[in-house]
């Protein structure tokens, strides 16, 4: 499992090859991504068991941020969105943003989230 895992894939390209040709990460990158994901998961579980921290207002935002970081790392590196064509990014990020706004809108609608003026 050496660094020769690095490769160029051209299965998305034809015509203007330079526009779509992309390089996927190598084994070293995948290994680091897996390690980071594991460490973040361990951190999430660890703070879950700290009563003094779970009682604070920082608990939920911290977990949400850590989860968002994990989500982004998997999408960027394992799903190759960092390296792939912009159309794929639009096809994923567009619905994701819309779905997230819908989720937040529903939470406001049902009184789980409030804005205090």
């Amino acid at each position, binding site marked *: *499992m050496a660094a020769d*895992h690095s*490769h160029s*894939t*051209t*299965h*998305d*390209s*034809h*015509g*203007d090859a330079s*526009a*779509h040709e992309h390089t*996927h*990460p190598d*084994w070293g990158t*995948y*290994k680091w*991504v*897996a390690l980071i*994901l*594991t460490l973040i*998961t361990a951190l*999430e*579980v660890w703070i*879950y068991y700290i009563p003094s921290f*779970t009682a604070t207002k920082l*608990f*939920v935002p911290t*977990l*949400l941020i*850590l*989860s968002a970081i*994990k*989500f982004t790392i*998997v*999408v960027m590196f*394992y*799903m190759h969105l960092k390296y792939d*064509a912009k*159309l*794929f990014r639009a*096809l*994923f990020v*567009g*619905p*994701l943003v*819309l*779905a*997230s706004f*819908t*989720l937040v809108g*529903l*939470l406001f609608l*049902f009184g*789980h989230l409030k804005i205090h003026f």
Partner: protein
Amino acid sequence: MATAAIDTHAAHAGGHPPTSTGLNNTKIAIWAFIGSECFFFASLISTYLIYRGRSLVGPFPHEAWTDPATGHVFPAILNIPVTSVSTFVLLMSSLAMVLAHSAVVRGDRKSSKIWLAATAILGAVFLGFQAYEFTSFVHEGLTIHTNLFGSSFFILTGFHGAHVTAGVIWLLTLLFIDMKRGLTPEEAINVDVCALYWHFVDVVWIAIFTLVYLIK
């Protein structure tokens, strides 16, 4: 003659005929499907969050509950250590998946078989954890009919489990093809599409693990 020209072009393009976008249509389709799945799981997660804390009777996810009629005490139902391990298993399955795809692209048949099998096995282990969790919940008195938490929890995690099951079947199909005649680098797109689905299932679980299991 024309077919030969297209085939030559397809071979240069990595196995797909010319498209108006210059991108593989199969890959566009899977990304569009994943986009639609974002809405699907957002609706299920929304439902869970809306019903969160509105159950009139226990068992509850994070706190103990005493049944006033019988005096029976139900402990907090979620088992965080077990779910943490199953989350780790699913994350490692994503690592195995990218290594399987990488092996197919390189034409390394031995590694592709090993990593495809590893991904399927890790997916099956995750499903085993989920089956254990569901069974223990039912034994502890939480079913899909018990309360709002039970209904929304089983629907959300059950649908996710169904997606993992579909992914495992997909992986086993690819593994069968790889063992039967071998997956060539030109067919790497088939593994790539499966990998994208598998990683999406993984990111959905990342969200579920935080929103359902960790946030009290």
